[in-house]
Protein backbone atom coordinates (compact mmCIF):
# COMPACT_ATOMS: atom_id res chain seq x y z
CA UNK A 1 0.00 0.00 0.00
CA UNK A 2 1.41 3.39 -0.96
CA UNK A 3 0.26 6.86 -1.99
CA UNK A 4 -0.62 5.61 -5.48
CA UNK A 5 -2.97 3.01 -4.01
CA UNK A 6 -4.63 5.72 -1.99
CA UNK A 7 -5.12 7.76 -5.15
CA UNK A 8 -6.51 4.69 -6.92
CA UNK A 9 -9.01 4.14 -4.08
CA UNK A 10 -10.03 7.79 -4.19
CA UNK A 11 -10.70 7.47 -7.91
CA UNK A 12 -12.77 4.34 -7.33
CA UNK A 13 -14.82 6.13 -4.73
CA UNK A 14 -15.31 9.11 -7.05
CA UNK A 15 -16.38 6.87 -9.94
CA UNK A 16 -18.71 4.90 -7.69
CA UNK A 17 -20.24 8.07 -6.28
CA UNK A 18 -20.80 9.39 -9.82
CA UNK A 19 -22.52 6.16 -10.81
CA UNK A 20 -24.85 6.36 -7.82
CA UNK A 21 -25.50 10.07 -8.46
CA UNK A 22 -26.56 9.29 -12.01
CA UNK A 23 -29.03 6.75 -10.54
CA UNK A 24 -28.75 3.95 -13.09
CA UNK A 25 -32.02 2.41 -14.23
CA UNK A 26 -32.43 -1.19 -13.22
CA UNK A 27 -35.28 -3.63 -13.24
CA UNK A 28 -36.03 -6.94 -11.55
CA UNK A 29 -38.27 -9.85 -12.53
CA UNK A 30 -38.11 -9.27 -16.27
CA UNK A 31 -38.89 -12.78 -17.54
CA UNK A 32 -42.20 -12.54 -19.50
CA UNK A 33 -45.16 -13.76 -17.50
CA UNK A 34 -48.92 -13.53 -17.12
CA UNK A 35 -51.16 -13.54 -14.07
CA UNK A 36 -53.61 -16.39 -14.37
CA UNK A 37 -55.32 -16.37 -10.99
CA UNK A 38 -55.86 -13.89 -8.16
CA UNK A 39 -57.24 -14.41 -4.70
CA UNK A 40 -57.10 -11.62 -2.13
CA UNK A 41 -53.51 -10.37 -2.34
CA UNK A 42 -52.13 -13.60 -3.80
CA UNK A 43 -51.40 -13.83 -7.51
CA UNK A 44 -50.52 -16.93 -9.47
CA UNK A 45 -47.92 -16.02 -12.08
CA UNK A 46 -47.31 -18.17 -15.15
CA UNK A 47 -44.04 -17.69 -17.01
CA UNK A 48 -44.29 -17.92 -20.78
CA UNK A 49 -42.49 -21.13 -21.82
CA UNK A 50 -39.41 -20.63 -23.94
CA UNK A 51 -39.56 -24.03 -25.62
CA UNK A 52 -42.22 -25.16 -28.04
CA UNK A 53 -43.18 -28.28 -26.08
CA UNK A 54 -42.40 -27.99 -22.36
CA UNK A 55 -42.18 -31.05 -20.13
CA UNK A 56 -45.72 -32.15 -19.35
CA UNK A 57 -45.70 -31.78 -15.56
CA UNK A 58 -45.68 -28.09 -14.56
CA UNK A 59 -43.73 -26.70 -11.62
CA UNK A 60 -45.33 -24.49 -8.99
CA UNK A 61 -42.79 -22.47 -7.02
CA UNK A 62 -43.87 -21.50 -3.52
CA UNK A 63 -41.69 -18.72 -2.21
CA UNK A 64 -41.34 -17.54 1.39
CA UNK A 65 -43.71 -15.03 2.96
CA UNK A 66 -40.74 -12.88 3.99
CA UNK A 67 -39.07 -11.03 1.11
CA UNK A 68 -40.22 -11.13 -2.46
CA UNK A 69 -40.21 -13.92 -5.01
CA UNK A 70 -38.29 -12.00 -7.68
CA UNK A 71 -34.97 -13.06 -6.15
CA UNK A 72 -35.53 -16.11 -8.38
CA UNK A 73 -35.66 -13.79 -11.39
CA UNK A 74 -33.38 -10.99 -10.26
CA UNK A 75 -31.79 -10.30 -13.63
CA UNK A 76 -31.73 -12.17 -16.94
CA UNK A 77 -28.28 -13.68 -16.39
CA UNK A 78 -29.06 -14.58 -12.77
CA UNK A 79 -32.50 -16.09 -13.00
CA UNK A 80 -33.55 -19.48 -11.64
CA UNK A 81 -36.86 -19.00 -13.44
CA UNK A 82 -35.27 -18.33 -16.83
CA UNK A 83 -32.94 -21.26 -16.39
CA UNK A 84 -35.83 -23.62 -15.60
CA UNK A 85 -37.76 -22.30 -18.63
CA UNK A 86 -34.73 -22.85 -20.83
CA UNK A 87 -34.48 -26.39 -19.46
CA UNK A 88 -37.96 -26.90 -20.92
CA UNK A 89 -40.18 -26.62 -17.84
CA UNK A 90 -43.57 -24.96 -17.53
CA UNK A 91 -43.13 -22.70 -14.51
CA UNK A 92 -45.61 -21.02 -12.18
CA UNK A 93 -44.91 -19.02 -9.04
CA UNK A 94 -47.03 -17.62 -6.23
CA UNK A 95 -46.70 -13.90 -5.57
CA UNK A 96 -47.93 -13.41 -1.98
CA UNK A 97 -48.20 -9.63 -2.32
CA UNK A 98 -47.97 -7.27 0.62
CA UNK A 99 -50.28 -8.16 3.52
CA UNK A 100 -52.08 -5.28 5.22
CA UNK A 101 -54.18 -4.97 8.39
CA UNK A 102 -56.96 -6.86 6.63
CA UNK A 103 -54.75 -9.96 6.51
CA UNK A 104 -53.72 -10.07 10.15
CA UNK A 105 -55.99 -13.03 10.93
CA UNK A 106 -54.77 -15.22 8.07
CA UNK A 107 -53.41 -18.50 9.44
CA UNK A 108 -50.93 -21.02 8.01
CA UNK A 109 -54.00 -23.10 7.19
CA UNK A 110 -55.28 -20.26 4.98
CA UNK A 111 -51.96 -20.13 3.18
CA UNK A 112 -51.46 -23.90 2.77
CA UNK A 113 -54.99 -25.26 2.39
CA UNK A 114 -56.31 -22.05 0.87
CA UNK A 115 -53.95 -20.17 -1.40
CA UNK A 116 -51.44 -22.94 -2.25
CA UNK A 117 -54.22 -25.47 -2.74
CA UNK A 118 -56.17 -23.14 -5.04
CA UNK A 119 -53.03 -22.38 -7.04
CA UNK A 120 -52.32 -26.11 -7.39
CA UNK A 121 -55.91 -26.81 -8.45
CA UNK A 122 -55.72 -24.04 -11.00
CA UNK A 123 -52.57 -25.46 -12.56
CA UNK A 124 -53.94 -29.01 -12.45
CA UNK A 125 -56.99 -27.81 -14.31
CA UNK A 126 -54.96 -25.82 -16.82
CA UNK A 127 -52.60 -28.73 -17.50
CA UNK A 128 -55.19 -31.49 -17.33
CA UNK A 129 -53.01 -33.38 -14.87
CA UNK A 130 -53.89 -34.74 -11.46
CA UNK A 131 -50.46 -34.03 -10.00
CA UNK A 132 -47.88 -31.30 -10.40
CA UNK A 133 -44.36 -30.62 -9.16
CA UNK A 134 -44.05 -28.40 -6.09
CA UNK A 135 -40.84 -26.46 -5.59
CA UNK A 136 -40.74 -24.74 -2.20
CA UNK A 137 -38.14 -22.13 -1.39
CA UNK A 138 -37.01 -21.35 2.16
CA UNK A 139 -40.13 -20.77 4.30
CA UNK A 140 -42.16 -21.47 1.16
CA UNK A 141 -40.52 -24.90 1.24
CA UNK A 142 -41.83 -25.45 4.76
CA UNK A 143 -45.32 -24.53 3.54
CA UNK A 144 -44.84 -26.88 0.57
CA UNK A 145 -43.83 -29.73 2.87
CA UNK A 146 -47.02 -29.15 4.88
CA UNK A 147 -49.04 -29.08 1.66
CA UNK A 148 -47.46 -32.25 0.29
CA UNK A 149 -48.22 -34.03 3.57
CA UNK A 150 -51.85 -32.92 3.53
CA UNK A 151 -52.51 -33.30 -0.21
CA UNK A 152 -50.11 -36.00 -1.47
CA UNK A 153 -52.59 -36.94 -4.20
CA UNK A 154 -51.90 -33.62 -5.96
CA UNK A 155 -48.10 -33.56 -5.76
CA UNK A 156 -46.05 -35.58 -8.21
CA UNK A 157 -42.61 -34.39 -7.09
CA UNK A 158 -41.52 -32.31 -4.14
CA UNK A 159 -38.43 -30.14 -4.33
CA UNK A 160 -37.32 -28.21 -1.29
CA UNK A 161 -34.75 -25.48 -1.72
CA UNK A 162 -32.96 -24.25 1.46
CA UNK A 163 -36.00 -25.30 3.47
CA UNK A 164 -36.15 -25.51 7.28
CA UNK A 165 -38.15 -28.38 8.78
CA UNK A 166 -36.15 -29.06 11.93
CA UNK A 167 -35.98 -25.93 14.06
CA UNK A 168 -34.12 -27.47 16.98
CA UNK A 169 -30.62 -26.40 16.03
CA UNK A 170 -28.02 -24.01 17.42
CA UNK A 171 -26.30 -23.55 14.07
CA UNK A 172 -28.27 -20.44 13.05
CA UNK A 173 -28.72 -17.33 15.16
CA UNK A 174 -32.40 -16.99 14.22
CA UNK A 175 -33.14 -20.37 15.82
CA UNK A 176 -31.40 -19.38 19.07
CA UNK A 177 -33.07 -15.96 19.24
CA UNK A 178 -36.53 -17.27 18.44
CA UNK A 179 -36.59 -19.35 21.62
CA UNK A 180 -36.58 -16.32 23.91
CA UNK A 181 -39.10 -14.30 21.90
CA UNK A 182 -42.51 -13.48 23.37
CA UNK A 183 -44.34 -13.97 20.08
CA UNK A 184 -47.79 -13.31 21.55
CA UNK A 185 -46.83 -9.83 22.71
CA UNK A 186 -45.35 -8.98 19.30
CA UNK A 187 -48.38 -10.17 17.36
CA UNK A 188 -50.88 -8.72 19.85
CA UNK A 189 -49.30 -5.31 19.53
CA UNK A 190 -48.53 -5.14 15.82
CA UNK A 191 -51.26 -7.34 14.35
CA UNK A 192 -49.37 -7.25 11.08
CA UNK A 193 -45.72 -7.83 11.97
CA UNK A 194 -43.59 -5.22 10.18
CA UNK A 195 -41.16 -6.53 7.60
CA UNK A 196 -38.66 -3.96 8.86
CA UNK A 197 -38.67 -5.61 12.28
CA UNK A 198 -37.75 -8.96 10.72
CA UNK A 199 -35.17 -7.25 8.54
CA UNK A 200 -33.45 -5.75 11.56
CA UNK A 201 -33.22 -9.31 12.92
CA UNK A 202 -31.57 -10.52 9.72
CA UNK A 203 -29.14 -7.58 9.77
CA UNK A 204 -28.24 -8.34 13.37
CA UNK A 205 -26.98 -11.79 12.38
CA UNK A 206 -23.80 -10.13 11.05
CA UNK A 207 -24.11 -6.40 11.68
CA UNK A 208 -20.63 -5.21 10.70
CA UNK A 209 -20.55 -7.04 7.39
CA UNK A 210 -24.18 -6.38 6.45
CA UNK A 211 -24.36 -2.76 7.53
CA UNK A 212 -20.83 -1.47 6.87
CA UNK A 213 -18.55 -3.82 4.94
CA UNK A 214 -21.09 -4.47 2.20
CA UNK A 215 -21.22 -0.76 1.31
CA UNK A 216 -17.44 -0.40 1.45
CA UNK A 217 -17.18 -3.46 -0.78
CA UNK A 218 -19.22 -2.01 -3.62
CA UNK A 219 -16.69 0.80 -4.06
CA UNK A 220 -13.88 -1.74 -3.90
CA UNK A 221 -15.36 -3.53 -6.88
CA UNK A 222 -15.39 -0.42 -9.08
CA UNK A 223 -12.70 -0.70 -11.74
CA UNK A 224 -10.64 2.35 -12.40
CA UNK A 225 -9.54 2.71 -16.00
CA UNK A 226 -10.03 6.14 -17.54
CA UNK A 227 -11.60 6.41 -21.03
CA UNK A 228 -12.25 2.66 -21.20
CA UNK A 229 -15.86 2.21 -22.36
CA UNK A 230 -15.98 -1.50 -21.62
CA UNK A 231 -14.74 -0.84 -18.10
CA UNK A 232 -17.37 1.89 -17.58
CA UNK A 233 -20.09 -0.51 -18.68
CA UNK A 234 -18.79 -3.15 -16.27
CA UNK A 235 -18.83 -0.58 -13.46
CA UNK A 236 -22.38 0.42 -14.31
CA UNK A 237 -23.43 -3.24 -14.32
CA UNK A 238 -21.72 -3.78 -10.94
CA UNK A 239 -23.70 -0.91 -9.43
CA UNK A 240 -26.94 -2.08 -11.04
CA UNK A 241 -26.45 -5.62 -9.68
CA UNK A 242 -25.75 -4.19 -6.26
CA UNK A 243 -28.88 -2.04 -6.36
CA UNK A 244 -31.02 -4.97 -7.51
CA UNK A 245 -29.89 -6.99 -4.52
CA UNK A 246 -30.26 -4.00 -2.21
CA UNK A 247 -33.84 -3.50 -3.42
CA UNK A 248 -34.68 -7.15 -2.82
CA UNK A 249 -33.14 -7.27 0.66
CA UNK A 250 -35.15 -4.32 1.91
CA UNK A 251 -38.34 -5.07 0.01
CA UNK A 252 -39.79 -6.94 2.96
CA UNK A 253 -43.54 -7.48 3.13
CA UNK A 254 -45.20 -7.30 6.53
CA UNK A 255 -46.33 -10.62 7.97
CA UNK A 256 -49.87 -11.76 8.70
CA UNK A 257 -49.90 -11.83 12.51
CA UNK A 258 -51.62 -15.17 13.13
CA UNK A 259 -49.43 -16.93 10.58
CA UNK A 260 -46.33 -15.43 12.19
CA UNK A 261 -47.57 -16.47 15.63
CA UNK A 262 -48.12 -20.09 14.61
CA UNK A 263 -44.94 -20.35 12.57
CA UNK A 264 -42.79 -18.99 15.38
CA UNK A 265 -44.44 -20.97 18.15
CA UNK A 266 -45.14 -24.30 16.43
CA UNK A 267 -42.02 -24.40 14.29
CA UNK A 268 -39.25 -22.31 15.86
CA UNK A 269 -40.17 -22.76 19.51
CA UNK A 270 -41.85 -26.18 19.73
CA UNK A 271 -40.41 -27.79 16.58
CA UNK A 272 -43.71 -29.58 15.96
CA UNK A 273 -43.41 -30.08 12.19
CA UNK A 274 -40.62 -32.63 12.18
CA UNK A 275 -42.25 -34.43 15.13
CA UNK A 276 -45.46 -34.85 13.09
CA UNK A 277 -47.33 -32.93 15.77
CA UNK A 278 -48.15 -29.75 13.87
CA UNK A 279 -51.82 -29.11 13.14
CA UNK A 280 -53.47 -26.91 10.54
CA UNK A 281 -57.12 -26.21 11.29
CA UNK A 282 -57.29 -29.37 13.39
CA UNK A 283 -55.64 -31.58 10.76
CA UNK A 284 -52.34 -33.18 11.76
CA UNK A 285 -49.44 -32.68 9.35
CA UNK A 286 -47.89 -36.13 9.12
CA UNK A 287 -44.68 -36.05 7.10
CA UNK A 288 -44.93 -39.82 6.57
CA UNK A 289 -47.74 -39.07 4.13
CA UNK A 290 -45.11 -37.63 1.80
CA UNK A 291 -44.39 -40.54 -0.48
CA UNK A 292 -43.69 -38.79 -3.77
CA UNK A 293 -40.13 -38.32 -5.10
CA UNK A 294 -38.27 -35.75 -3.01
CA UNK A 295 -35.28 -33.59 -3.88
CA UNK A 296 -33.86 -31.71 -0.89
CA UNK A 297 -31.49 -28.93 -2.03
CA UNK A 298 -29.27 -27.12 0.47
CA UNK A 299 -26.49 -24.54 0.60
CA UNK A 300 -23.44 -25.64 2.55
CA UNK A 301 -22.72 -22.19 4.02
CA UNK A 302 -26.31 -21.18 4.67
CA UNK A 303 -26.40 -18.97 7.79
CA UNK A 304 -30.19 -18.60 7.76
CA UNK A 305 -31.21 -22.19 7.10
CA UNK A 306 -28.32 -24.37 8.25
CA UNK A 307 -28.14 -27.89 6.83
CA UNK A 308 -29.15 -29.26 10.24
CA UNK A 309 -32.53 -27.63 9.69
CA UNK A 310 -33.08 -29.25 6.28
CA UNK A 311 -31.37 -32.67 6.34
CA UNK A 312 -33.90 -34.39 8.68
CA UNK A 313 -36.65 -34.03 6.07
CA UNK A 314 -35.36 -37.01 4.09
CA UNK A 315 -35.62 -39.25 7.14
CA UNK A 316 -39.06 -37.99 8.09
CA UNK A 317 -40.85 -38.77 4.80
CA UNK A 318 -41.81 -42.19 3.48
CA UNK A 319 -40.66 -41.52 -0.10
CA UNK A 320 -38.43 -44.26 -1.48
CA UNK A 321 -37.16 -41.99 -4.26
CA UNK A 322 -35.36 -39.21 -2.41
CA UNK A 323 -32.16 -37.33 -3.00
CA UNK A 324 -30.13 -34.57 -1.41
CA UNK A 325 -28.05 -31.97 -3.23
CA UNK A 326 -25.70 -29.71 -1.28
CA UNK A 327 -23.93 -26.85 -3.05
CA UNK A 328 -20.93 -24.96 -1.69
CA UNK A 329 -22.69 -21.61 -1.51
CA UNK A 330 -24.83 -19.49 0.84
CA UNK A 331 -28.56 -18.92 1.36
CA UNK A 332 -28.79 -16.16 -1.25
CA UNK A 333 -25.94 -17.46 -3.40
CA UNK A 334 -28.01 -20.52 -4.23
CA UNK A 335 -30.39 -18.26 -6.21
CA UNK A 336 -28.07 -15.62 -7.59
CA UNK A 337 -24.49 -16.85 -7.22
CA UNK A 338 -22.45 -18.12 -10.15
CA UNK A 339 -23.05 -21.70 -8.95
CA UNK A 340 -26.80 -21.16 -9.16
CA UNK A 341 -26.82 -20.93 -12.94
CA UNK A 342 -24.02 -23.41 -13.56
CA UNK A 343 -24.78 -26.13 -11.01
CA UNK A 344 -27.96 -25.64 -8.95
CA UNK A 345 -30.52 -25.18 -11.73
CA UNK A 346 -28.99 -27.83 -14.02
CA UNK A 347 -28.85 -30.20 -11.01
CA UNK A 348 -32.55 -29.69 -10.29
CA UNK A 349 -33.38 -30.05 -13.98
CA UNK A 350 -31.40 -33.29 -14.28
CA UNK A 351 -33.32 -34.78 -11.35
CA UNK A 352 -36.70 -33.47 -12.44
CA UNK A 353 -36.75 -34.20 -16.17
CA UNK A 354 -37.19 -38.00 -15.95
CA UNK A 355 -39.85 -37.41 -13.26
CA UNK A 356 -41.81 -34.89 -15.32
CA UNK A 357 -43.88 -37.33 -17.33
CA UNK A 358 -47.57 -37.43 -16.38
CA UNK A 359 -48.65 -40.50 -14.39
CA UNK A 360 -49.24 -43.48 -16.60
CA UNK A 361 -47.50 -41.88 -19.58
CA UNK A 362 -44.02 -43.14 -18.92
CA UNK A 363 -44.37 -45.13 -22.16
CA UNK A 364 -46.19 -42.21 -23.86
CA UNK A 365 -49.40 -44.25 -24.36
CA UNK A 366 -51.74 -42.11 -22.27
CA UNK A 367 -50.59 -38.66 -23.40
CA UNK A 368 -53.30 -38.51 -26.04
CA UNK A 369 -55.88 -39.48 -23.44
CA UNK A 370 -54.64 -36.60 -21.26
CA UNK A 371 -55.04 -34.12 -24.10
CA UNK A 372 -58.59 -35.32 -24.76
CA UNK A 373 -59.39 -35.08 -21.03
CA UNK A 374 -57.93 -31.56 -20.90
CA UNK A 375 -59.95 -30.42 -23.90
CA UNK A 376 -63.14 -31.85 -22.37
CA UNK A 377 -62.44 -30.15 -19.04
CA UNK A 378 -61.85 -26.78 -20.68
CA UNK A 379 -65.02 -27.04 -22.71
CA UNK A 380 -67.01 -27.94 -19.60
CA UNK A 381 -65.68 -24.91 -17.79
CA UNK A 382 -66.31 -22.59 -20.74
CA UNK A 383 -62.69 -21.41 -20.87
CA UNK A 384 -61.10 -20.05 -23.99
CA UNK A 385 -58.43 -22.36 -25.26
CA UNK A 386 -55.42 -21.20 -27.17
Amino acid sequence: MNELDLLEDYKKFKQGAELFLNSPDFSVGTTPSEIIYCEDKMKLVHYIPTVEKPHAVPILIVYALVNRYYILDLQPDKSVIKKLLDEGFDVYIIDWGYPTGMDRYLTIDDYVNGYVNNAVDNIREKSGLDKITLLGVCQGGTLSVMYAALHPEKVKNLITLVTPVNFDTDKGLLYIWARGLDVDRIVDYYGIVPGDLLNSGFLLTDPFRLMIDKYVGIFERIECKPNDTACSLRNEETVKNFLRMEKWIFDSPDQAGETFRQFMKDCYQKNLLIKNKMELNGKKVNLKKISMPLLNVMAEFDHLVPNDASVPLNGAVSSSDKETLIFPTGHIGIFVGSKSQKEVCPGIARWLKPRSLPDGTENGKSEKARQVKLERKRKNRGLKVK
Partner: protein
Amino acid sequence: MESSGFESTRKFFDIWLKNYEATYGRLMDMPALGPAREKSEKLMKEFSIGVNLYAAGMDSNINFQSVFMEAMRRMREKMATEMEGEISPEKYKEFYKIWVETYSETFKEFLSSGHFASDMGKFMSYFMEFQKHNREMLEENYLKPMNLPTKTDIDEINKELYSLKKTVKELTGKIKELSLMNPSKKGEDPGVHQTEEK
Protein backbone atom coordinates in the same frame (compact mmCIF):
# COMPACT_ATOMS: atom_id res chain seq x y z
CA MET B 1 -15.48 -13.21 27.15
CA GLU B 2 -13.65 -11.33 29.90
CA SER B 3 -15.62 -8.99 32.12
CA SER B 4 -15.26 -5.36 31.13
CA GLY B 5 -15.48 -2.13 33.12
CA PHE B 6 -19.26 -2.04 33.15
CA GLU B 7 -19.81 -4.14 36.26
CA SER B 8 -19.95 -1.03 38.45
CA THR B 9 -22.61 0.51 36.16
CA ARG B 10 -24.64 -2.68 36.45
CA LYS B 11 -24.26 -2.72 40.25
CA PHE B 12 -25.28 0.94 40.47
CA PHE B 13 -28.34 0.32 38.32
CA ASP B 14 -29.34 -2.75 40.35
CA ILE B 15 -29.22 -0.71 43.56
CA TRP B 16 -31.24 2.09 41.93
CA LEU B 17 -33.87 -0.42 40.74
CA LYS B 18 -34.18 -2.08 44.16
CA ASN B 19 -34.59 1.31 45.83
CA TYR B 20 -37.18 2.39 43.28
CA GLU B 21 -39.19 -0.80 43.77
CA ALA B 22 -39.07 -0.37 47.55
CA THR B 23 -40.17 3.28 47.50
CA TYR B 24 -41.73 5.02 44.47
CA GLY B 25 -42.61 1.76 42.82
CA ARG B 26 -44.89 0.83 45.73
CA LEU B 27 -46.52 4.25 45.53
CA MET B 28 -47.30 3.74 41.85
CA ASP B 29 -48.76 0.27 42.52
CA MET B 30 -51.04 1.58 45.25
CA PRO B 31 -54.75 1.02 44.48
CA ALA B 32 -56.45 4.19 43.26
CA LEU B 33 -59.63 5.48 44.89
CA GLY B 34 -62.62 7.55 43.85
CA PRO B 35 -64.57 8.04 40.61
CA ALA B 36 -61.43 8.18 38.44
CA ARG B 37 -59.87 5.05 39.98
CA GLU B 38 -60.04 2.92 36.81
CA LYS B 39 -58.35 5.54 34.65
CA SER B 40 -55.84 6.40 37.37
CA GLU B 41 -54.80 2.79 37.84
CA LYS B 42 -54.29 2.34 34.12
CA LEU B 43 -52.21 5.51 33.98
CA MET B 44 -50.14 4.50 36.98
CA LYS B 45 -49.51 1.10 35.42
CA GLU B 46 -47.50 2.90 32.77
CA PHE B 47 -44.83 3.68 35.36
CA SER B 48 -44.17 0.06 36.27
CA ILE B 49 -44.24 -1.00 32.60
CA GLY B 50 -41.87 1.87 31.80
CA VAL B 51 -39.50 0.88 34.59
CA ASN B 52 -39.45 -2.73 33.37
CA LEU B 53 -38.59 -1.50 29.87
CA TYR B 54 -35.96 0.87 31.22
CA ALA B 55 -34.37 -1.94 33.24
CA ALA B 56 -34.32 -4.31 30.27
CA GLY B 57 -32.93 -1.51 28.08
CA MET B 58 -30.18 -0.78 30.59
CA ASP B 59 -29.28 -4.48 30.74
CA SER B 60 -29.01 -4.71 26.95
CA ASN B 61 -27.10 -1.45 26.80
CA ILE B 62 -24.55 -2.59 29.39
CA ASN B 63 -24.13 -5.91 27.58
CA PHE B 64 -23.57 -4.20 24.24
CA GLN B 65 -21.09 -1.76 25.76
CA SER B 66 -19.19 -4.71 27.25
CA VAL B 67 -18.99 -6.40 23.86
CA PHE B 68 -17.71 -3.20 22.27
CA MET B 69 -15.05 -3.00 24.98
CA GLU B 70 -14.08 -6.62 24.40
CA ALA B 71 -13.87 -6.05 20.63
CA MET B 72 -11.67 -3.00 21.23
CA ARG B 73 -9.41 -5.02 23.51
CA ARG B 74 -9.03 -7.77 20.89
CA MET B 75 -8.41 -5.14 18.24
CA ARG B 76 -5.60 -3.63 20.31
CA GLU B 77 -3.99 -7.06 20.64
CA LYS B 78 -4.19 -7.72 16.92
CA MET B 79 -2.82 -4.30 16.11
CA ALA B 80 0.19 -5.05 18.25
CA THR B 81 0.85 -8.43 16.64
CA GLU B 82 -0.45 -8.25 13.07
CA MET B 83 0.32 -4.61 12.31
CA GLU B 84 3.25 -4.26 14.71
CA GLY B 85 1.56 -1.33 16.40
CA GLU B 86 1.80 0.86 13.33
CA ILE B 87 -1.30 2.76 12.18
CA SER B 88 -0.27 4.80 9.20
CA PRO B 89 -2.49 6.01 6.31
CA GLU B 90 -0.72 3.47 4.07
CA LYS B 91 -2.02 0.63 6.22
CA TYR B 92 -5.61 1.82 6.49
CA LYS B 93 -6.98 -0.98 4.33
CA GLU B 94 -5.31 -3.61 6.44
CA PHE B 95 -6.54 -1.84 9.54
CA TYR B 96 -10.09 -1.77 8.20
CA LYS B 97 -9.98 -5.50 7.35
CA ILE B 98 -8.79 -6.43 10.83
CA TRP B 99 -11.36 -4.10 12.37
CA VAL B 100 -14.32 -5.66 10.49
CA GLU B 101 -13.11 -9.20 11.20
CA THR B 102 -12.47 -8.62 14.89
CA TYR B 103 -15.73 -6.82 15.57
CA SER B 104 -17.75 -9.34 13.53
CA GLU B 105 -16.24 -12.30 15.37
CA THR B 106 -16.65 -10.76 18.81
CA PHE B 107 -20.24 -9.76 18.17
CA LYS B 108 -21.07 -13.15 16.69
CA GLU B 109 -19.87 -14.84 19.89
CA PHE B 110 -22.07 -12.52 21.92
CA LEU B 111 -25.10 -12.74 19.62
CA SER B 112 -25.02 -16.53 19.58
CA SER B 113 -25.08 -16.79 23.37
CA GLY B 114 -28.27 -17.86 25.09
CA HIS B 115 -27.74 -14.87 27.36
CA PHE B 116 -28.26 -12.41 24.49
CA ALA B 117 -31.29 -14.33 23.23
CA SER B 118 -32.98 -14.17 26.61
CA ASP B 119 -32.08 -10.48 27.11
CA MET B 120 -33.36 -9.56 23.67
CA GLY B 121 -36.54 -11.55 24.27
CA LYS B 122 -37.08 -9.75 27.58
CA PHE B 123 -36.46 -6.32 26.05
CA MET B 124 -38.78 -6.97 23.11
CA SER B 125 -41.47 -8.25 25.44
CA TYR B 126 -41.36 -5.15 27.69
CA PHE B 127 -41.14 -2.89 24.64
CA MET B 128 -44.27 -4.45 23.15
CA GLU B 129 -46.09 -4.21 26.48
CA PHE B 130 -45.11 -0.55 26.78
CA GLN B 131 -46.25 0.25 23.24
CA LYS B 132 -49.50 -1.63 23.68
CA HIS B 133 -50.25 0.21 26.90
CA ASN B 134 -49.46 3.55 25.26
CA ARG B 135 -51.86 2.78 22.47
CA GLU B 136 -54.58 1.77 24.90
CA MET B 137 -54.11 5.05 26.76
CA LEU B 138 -54.26 6.99 23.51
CA GLU B 139 -57.48 5.24 22.56
CA GLU B 140 -58.97 5.60 26.03
CA ASN B 141 -58.09 9.22 26.67
CA TYR B 142 -58.11 10.85 23.24
CA LEU B 143 -59.68 8.87 20.43
CA LYS B 144 -62.76 7.51 22.24
CA PRO B 145 -63.74 10.87 23.84
CA MET B 146 -63.39 12.49 20.42
CA ASN B 147 -65.51 9.73 18.89
CA LEU B 148 -62.73 8.72 16.50
CA PRO B 149 -62.14 5.16 15.26
CA THR B 150 -59.47 3.23 17.13
CA LYS B 151 -57.10 0.41 16.18
CA THR B 152 -59.24 -1.88 18.32
CA ASP B 153 -62.30 -0.95 16.24
CA ILE B 154 -60.41 -1.57 12.99
CA ASP B 155 -59.12 -4.93 14.26
CA GLU B 156 -62.69 -5.96 15.08
CA ILE B 157 -63.81 -5.08 11.55
CA ASN B 158 -60.84 -6.94 10.08
CA LYS B 159 -61.66 -10.02 12.13
CA GLU B 160 -65.28 -9.91 11.02
CA LEU B 161 -64.22 -9.43 7.41
CA TYR B 162 -61.78 -12.33 7.63
CA SER B 163 -64.44 -14.60 9.04
CA LEU B 164 -66.99 -13.55 6.37
CA LYS B 165 -64.50 -14.06 3.55
CA LYS B 166 -63.63 -17.49 4.87
CA THR B 167 -67.31 -18.45 4.93
CA VAL B 168 -67.82 -17.13 1.39
CA LYS B 169 -64.83 -19.15 0.17
CA GLU B 170 -66.14 -22.32 1.83
CA LEU B 171 -69.58 -21.83 0.31
CA THR B 172 -68.06 -21.05 -3.09
CA GLY B 173 -66.13 -24.31 -2.90
CA LYS B 174 -69.28 -26.22 -2.09
CA ILE B 175 -71.20 -24.57 -4.98
CA LYS B 176 -68.32 -25.49 -7.30
CA GLU B 177 -68.43 -29.12 -6.15
CA LEU B 178 -72.19 -29.27 -6.64
CA SER B 179 -72.03 -27.69 -10.09
CA LEU B 180 -69.37 -30.21 -11.13
CA MET B 181 -71.61 -33.03 -9.91
CA ASN B 182 -74.36 -31.61 -12.14
CA PRO B 183 -72.62 -30.72 -15.43
CA SER B 184 -75.86 -29.58 -17.12
CA LYS B 185 -75.74 -26.38 -15.05
CA LYS B 186 -72.69 -24.68 -16.37
CA GLY B 187 -71.48 -21.40 -14.98
CA GLU B 188 -68.50 -19.36 -14.06
CA ASP B 189 -66.65 -20.14 -10.87
CA PRO B 190 -67.73 -17.64 -8.28
CA GLY B 191 -64.89 -16.36 -6.14
CA VAL B 192 -62.27 -17.42 -8.63
CA HIS B 193 -61.00 -14.70 -10.89
CA GLN B 194 -59.93 -16.55 -14.01
CA THR B 195 -58.18 -14.42 -16.57
CA GLU B 196 -58.17 -15.27 -20.22
CA GLU B 197 -55.02 -16.72 -21.65
CA LYS B 198 -53.23 -14.23 -23.84
